């Protein structure tokens, strides 16, 4: 039997202490051990972005990282995006308003990618935004509404910051 390690993960502010084989990817551990199935697997080889989560403020592919490597880092998944009372994040609201999802399978990945992007560059221009969002695949929407939703959310977040 292969090695098992005790691993402590901090996901959406909560600690999970788990006993894991090191070969388990972060994506699989989030889904199978933490019960956070909002992080999806569309390819498991780094191309589709469905598994995107935020680690220490940056968007990364959780299928390309082993869970043991994520110890001591702040992991945020789509389940951690809404407020404590369940109030939707502006990105979530904008995705609904703009019909930026159909089957919804790619949605968590796009939300986390966009979330990290707007945290890092709140004033990002359209071309740069398209470059970043081109990282993830969606097979349903044709992308146009995803772009519109992220732009709207960026504007809403900016307006909120300006308010005292």
């Amino acid at each position: 039997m292969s090695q098992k390690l005790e691993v402590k993960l901090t996901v959406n502010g909560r600690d999970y202490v788990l006993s894991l084989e090191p070969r388990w990817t972060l994506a699989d551990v989030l889904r199978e051990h933490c019960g956070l199935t909002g992080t999806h697997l569309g390819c498991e080889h780094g191309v589709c972005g469905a598994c995107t989560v935020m680690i220490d403020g940056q968007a990364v592919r959780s299928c390309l990282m082993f869970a043991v490597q994520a110890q001591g880092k702040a992991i945020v998944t789509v389940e951690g995006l809404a407020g404590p009372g369940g109030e939707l994040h502006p990105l979530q609201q904008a995705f609904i308003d703009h019909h930026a999802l159909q089957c919804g399978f790619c949605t968590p990945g796009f939300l986390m990618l966009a979330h990290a992007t707007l945290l890092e560059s709140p004033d990002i221009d359209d071309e740069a935004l398209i470059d970043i969002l081109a990282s993830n695949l969606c097979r349903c929407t044709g992308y146009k509404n995803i772009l519109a939703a992220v732009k709207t959310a960026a504007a809403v977040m900016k307006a909120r910051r300006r308010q005292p």
Partner: protein
Amino acid sequence: MTGASVTAFEKGKTRVFGRSVSRIEDLPLVTGRGRYVADLDFPRQIHMRVVRSEEAHGRIVAIRLDAARAVPGVVAVWTHADIAGLPPIDFRDPAAEALKPYRQPLLAKGVVRYVGEPVAVVLAESPYVAEDAAELVAVEVEALPPLLDAAAPPAAFAPGLSTEALELSQEYGDVAAAFREAHCIVEAELSIGRHSGVPMECRGAIGRYDAAYDVLELWGAAKVPHRNREALARFFGRPSSSVQLHECHVGGGFGIRGELYPEDFLVCAASMRLGCPVKWIEDRREHLIAANHSRQQHHRVRAAVDAEGRILALEDAIFLDQGAYVRTHGARVLDLTLAMLPGPYRVPAFRAVGHFRLTNKTPAATYRAPGRYEGTFVRERLLDAIAARLGLDGVAIRRRNLIASNEMPYARQLTANGHPIILDSGDYAGLLRAALEAFGWEETEARLRERRAAGEFVGAGLSFFLEKSGQGPSDSALVSVDSGGFVEVVTGGASLGQGFETAMAQICAETLGVDYRRVRVVHGQTDRIRFGIGAHASRATVMTGGAVHAAASEVRRKALAQASVLLQAPADELDIVEGRVVRRDAPMGASISLGELSRASGPGRDGAGNGMPGLYSESWFHTEGMAFPYGVHIAVVRVDRATGQVAVERYFVATDVGRAVNPMMVEGQIAGGVVQGLGGALYEEFRYDAAGQPLSATFAAYLMPTMREAPKVEVLIAEDAPSPNNPLGIKGVGEGGCTGAGAAIASAIDAAIGRPGAVTALPATPERVLSLLEAARR
């Protein structure tokens, strides 16, 4: 209700039907609380891993299982010998007897016929362990030469069986005479590449046998759960009432998801035999070599035309590359290709012969706009060629041949899937006019001419498509109002992410007079309703929508009848607003809620009367005819003269959908369809090497468009020609975004490089386009 020709909801007077309301399915999906099949677990479940052939064609000499069986955590390892009693996978509809020998066994039987074919399965405690053990299954194969070209001479599939499994043909009119008398004959040889739906969610299935009640459950069903229930029941020799299929959230379908594959039967068989739930989640590599491929066809087509460019006859020979086995659809795609080939045009004489041929590639079946994407490419390429030959422009040639609105309904003298094609309604020329105007065709063409003169390789291309939707004959729905006034709609429909719940809620809410957000829509659960057509071929909104309308109308009738007693007013003077019955002439006066009426009519209550208690109805919708949506695609592309890369600068679709239940969702369907169509036109292709090894088995090699490649699709929704074949006038919108894309892009590339008819094969890869460009400059 049968074929009512009135449109139920008057335009401009609806509350929620026809409005772009937000979707009721979105909240769980944006918060990560959706439940796709991979997210579902059952206690004591085990995991299945499929061992797949690595050879394209060969005889199985030996399969060694000892090493795999010895891995701790492995429960069982099976090959064909272990399931020899189970038959091959049958066709959904009775298909030609000739196709039967070509059906796929659950696990390869003596021979492997494509890379990816299931050869063995490992059942183990975790997916990781199952994969470890699967690696240890040693399959020894004696290689046979693979057949990889459907247009090449057929070979032997098995002793005495040709790889040409079937020849289909359809024909009408005097084709020979038309070609004899033609002003000229225009020919083309065209091909469409192998690509497919490739939803973002891979397939998955959980088989769960409940011995306590002798019920077999299949979780992760999609598309056609009720018909698959019948198929599973037949397959296992069980009463269909003891087989239940359950749909979870589905991450896209596009025609390929929800057909029954070997894995669906295997998890069921294993769960019954091993006495525990069996979960199988496909990985992406498996998906790309095992789930249905589609589209690959080669056409030798010709048209007889008169001096004005009017088509006198069309003749086509089609070679369809079916891959290694014939799956649940039989020869459906070929049949649809033949039937829809003439599209929206007057074609006085027609003959098409389709060669349905097996090769050593992944089996193929339907993908969004099956047969129409291919046929539209072929037909529209041919129209462009006719125009070029006669010196006409692309618009003029189409105008000259489109069926006129006063010819509707138009009997085509062809059948699709055995049903006669009778085009229900349409103003094709009117939509073409509207499209050109909305797009700004003249101005754009002028601009593009200037840019070309300045040395750019830019051009616009256009295609006209005809789709088919809403094939009957029947569907049912159950609408009930509970004691709190909440409404439940139970359907036999299915949701693949297209907004089915919202559309049904809108139809129900409009009919009944309630807030659509108070309507809960059930779909894809065979234990909730006896029949169901699922969701495919753009049938759901038309057929299930028709049934929901019928059931909600009946509930409304019941509610008003009851309320008329309580409010002491004739039923026809009453209305339902926001879930309360009011007098039309005094909407602010006395009222009674649907919840109260539901309570009052409960079993044993006075209001129940002598009939069926409760405020509910199960109703049916029947129709004979289909609804034929249609539309125009226009693409503007720029070709990079040094690399042959094609960038889509603008993309426009005009489509007549009869009535749009939710314009926002219609636009979403069109935009998504376009990008898929564009994928097949420019990027996506399942390539194979000379030994039959798949070269597109990763997402780095199977190239689906990203946001960078996708144009911002502009959509014009027209509602000029409601379908007379359903009371809501709806035509399906699932496929039209895809249908015309290959044709429009090809035409635009021709224009950009200044060589009409240059693009004869999809996808138009940069390498191919660069060769065309260089040839054009020579």
